[in-house]
């Protein structure tokens, strides 16, 4: 069930009405949300409900047992069960064919004729998200940062909560479980923010991302027909598409959750304003980057064991972060690219904001914006690696990306300009005021006009058929 589909509107309306009619009992609300979440997921393919249920059952009982276990060896074994089970599910459904094909390619490279079995495995939607979410529960219990919940319904809801089930944010139990386990008091401010997030999320997705996606696809899918500036435009269009699509989804998810009285973590904090790669990963897909930092990077030793090991840990974390995105070598390379950039920046010492960039003097502002632009260019190059389908396509881009316009350039630039303009204006204000909800400071009458215009634009310029969110494939 896609957020941008009429089925979802009907579904959510029914859930919302039922939810508020059960307002006297948060336990009944939880049961309702759990059933709704399973219906939401099952609408796509009911067969994979079994996987969520399996992951839920395993981690609930592992968590419960882990908390009561004092023997360190047994604690590790229990943790291993949880991590192994979740990674096995993820590994099989997501990576089996990838590794089989890659192994075959390696064998062929050495002259052996391998013929690995390739299974027609369907990738369950959201598997990368909910497996990571549920693993964070058992890991936090192991680390004694969290006590397990005794209520299976609460835990099951934590794993399957429909607003964030299929494309995040990847929630932490320390944040979401306490909200599930008590009565929600829905404040007006939450509803206010929720309405804006939902509207802005849809705007980013169906108006900006989907239209930029058409342009990006046109260039990338027919790349040999384009050259020069058009190739740059393709990359820019994709960078706007992936941001609009993913942050749009996160906003809708968070907005819906707010209407239900839940606060999900912020997943994007103006990533294209980052001044260095560390800053970028504090702003882009924060729920994943923080998960990788807390459960992988720190577990590997973080930056506590000297420079070389820090670089190793950074590289490995980003490599696996790239692999998380999909069973394809370009995602791995993209992860590796960002790992290298992180290492380079760390090596040159540009991790924190230098003194010379602080303050409001011209030089500091100039340096900050200069750093932002450099980081943006690095990010755009990374998106090229992320988006290409083949090495040939990548080489073509590198070879023909010179600064010469074509007959299409003007038309493409107009499209980019008009569709990215609302996003740029909004983000500049959010950046200046350091407030992601800055628009809510506007007088009510202006907000009403703005919301009305946004809604009409969503209808008029939005994609007619519900198109999937990019991160569903992850």
């Amino acid at each position, binding site marked *: 069930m896609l957020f941008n589909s009429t089925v979802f509107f009907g579904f959510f309306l029914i859930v919302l009405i039922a939810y508020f009619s059960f307002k006297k009992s948060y336990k009944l609300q939880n049961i309702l949300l759990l059933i709704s979440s399973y219906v939401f997921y099952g609408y796509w393919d009911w067969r994979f409900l079994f996987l969520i249920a399996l992951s839920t059952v395993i981690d609930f009982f592992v968590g419960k047992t882990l908390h009561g276990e004092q023997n360190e060896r047994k604690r590790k074994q229990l943790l291993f069960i949880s991590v192994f089970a979740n990674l096995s599910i993820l590994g099989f459904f997501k990576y089996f064919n990838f590794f089989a094909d890659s192994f075959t390619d390696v064998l062929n490279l050495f002259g052996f004729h391998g013929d690995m079995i390739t299974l027609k495995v369907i990738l369950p939607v959201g598997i990368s998200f909910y497996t990571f979410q549920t693993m964070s529960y058992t890991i936090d219990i192991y680390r004694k940062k969290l006590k397990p919940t005794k209520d299976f319904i609460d835990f099951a809801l934590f794993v399957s909560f429909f607003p964030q089930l299929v494309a995040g944010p990847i929630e932490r139990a320390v944040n979401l479980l306490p909200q599930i386990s008590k009565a929600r008091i829905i404040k007006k401010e*939450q*509803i*206010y923010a929720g309405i804006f997030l939902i509207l802005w999320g849809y705007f980013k997705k169906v108006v900006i991302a989907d239209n930029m996606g058409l342009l990006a696809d046109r260039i990338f899918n027919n790349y040999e027909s384009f050259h020069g500036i058009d190739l740059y435009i393709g990359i820019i269009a994709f960078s706007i598409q992936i941001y609009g699509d993913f942050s749009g989804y996160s906003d809708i998810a968070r907005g819906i959750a707010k209407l239900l009285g839940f606060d999900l973590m*912020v997943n994007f904090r103006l990533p294209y304003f980052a*001044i260095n790669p560390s800053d970028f990963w504090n702003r882009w897909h924060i729920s994943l980057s923080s998960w990788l930092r807390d459960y992988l990077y720190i577990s590997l030793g973080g930056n506590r064991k000297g420079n070389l090991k820090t670089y190793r840990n950074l590289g490995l974390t980003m490599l696996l972060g790239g692999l998380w995105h999909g069973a394809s070598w370009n995602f791995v390379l993209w992860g590796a690219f960002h790992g290298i950039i992180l290492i380079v920046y760390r090596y040159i010492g540009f991790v924190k*904001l230098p003194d010379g960039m602080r303050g409001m003097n011209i030089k500091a502002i100039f340096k900050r914006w200069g750093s932002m632009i450099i980081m943006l260019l690095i990010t755009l190059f990374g998106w090229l690696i992320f988006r290409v389908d083949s090495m040939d396509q990548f080489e073509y881009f590198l070879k023909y990306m010179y600064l010469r316009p074509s007959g299409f350039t003007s038309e493409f630039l107009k499209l980019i300009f008009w569709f990215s303009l609302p996003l740029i204006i909004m983000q500049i204000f959010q950046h200046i*005021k350091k407030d*992601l909800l800055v628009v809510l400071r506007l007088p009510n009458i202006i907000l009403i006009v703005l*919301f009305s215009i946004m809604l009409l634009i969503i209808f008029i310029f939005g994609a007619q058929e519900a198109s999937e969110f990019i991160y569903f494939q992850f």
Partner: protein
Amino acid sequence: MDKLPIEILKKISNRKIVSLIVIPLLVAFLVNLYLIFYFERFSPNPFYFIVNKKLSILKKIDKKVDWLVVGDSSGNQGVNPAIIKDSIGGSSYNLCTFADMGLMDGCWMLDYLIKSDLAPKNVIMVQVYDSWNRNVYPALFGQYPFSWIYRKAVEPELFIPEQYRKDVFYSHFLPIIHQADRIPDRIKTLRSFKQKLAYIDDNGYNPYTFGVNEYEINADFKYHLKYTTDREPYISPHNLIAIKYLQEISENTDINIYLANSPLHDELFADSTFNKFYTKLNEIISSHFNESGRVHYINNPPILFNKSLLQSSDHLTDEGAEIFTRHLLKEISKAKLE
């Protein structure tokens, strides 16, 4: 690092929340309401526009028609009712739409008139060769009256899958979703739209008077050559249903039905691959009407036109339409004699 932006919640009153939800929705509702009425006359979708225009002409018919012309776009701009009237007299209307409706909407329009006690005396049905293998295009359902689609008010009945019934609903009642994507294009092309499409005669004729575009003709030529290569002709299930209906009409009423091939580009017809496909298709079509006394298959082989009288392989200019209309009348006279 530069300070990260956060979410600062703002205080708000209940009244303001309600106004922020209700007013934008109300605005969208009112815009949608306006579009329901506006798009019925001036849909930004050229297909929808033509269908709406032809249906509005159909609904205005209050007397029995002598010559009802139905079919696809080749007939829409290929048959001039005024020439029929001048040549042989009687009333005549051109309600041709698109090949994507196959024979179906022609049958529906005919049935509508029969059921309204306004059965025409003669029906000319103009179909391009590649409309025969097409089932009805569901996106166009929404332009036909609700009663035709949902309450089966006209025959032949057509099973419409549930997913397309939704489209019918949206098209009628939610044009802000269903058709609004065309508004930006319409704004860009408003002038040319008004020149080209908005001009449909009161008798339904949609003349093409904008000059010959060789590029368009050549591109269409290539398309049809490719279409008929490695492909076998057949009649789609929807068109078979329509044929059955026409056979029943011919048996049970005294309406004369003239099923006419569309005009064709001479160079296209001269191509051996195309010609083979076309001939085989005509044999299949003829076989359905051999024993239908009142259904006459005319313009077979088709009258051919050179580029100077064409907009595309089967669409004529206004000058070409005059020739084609007169040709059809000759064919009809010949058929009557037989």
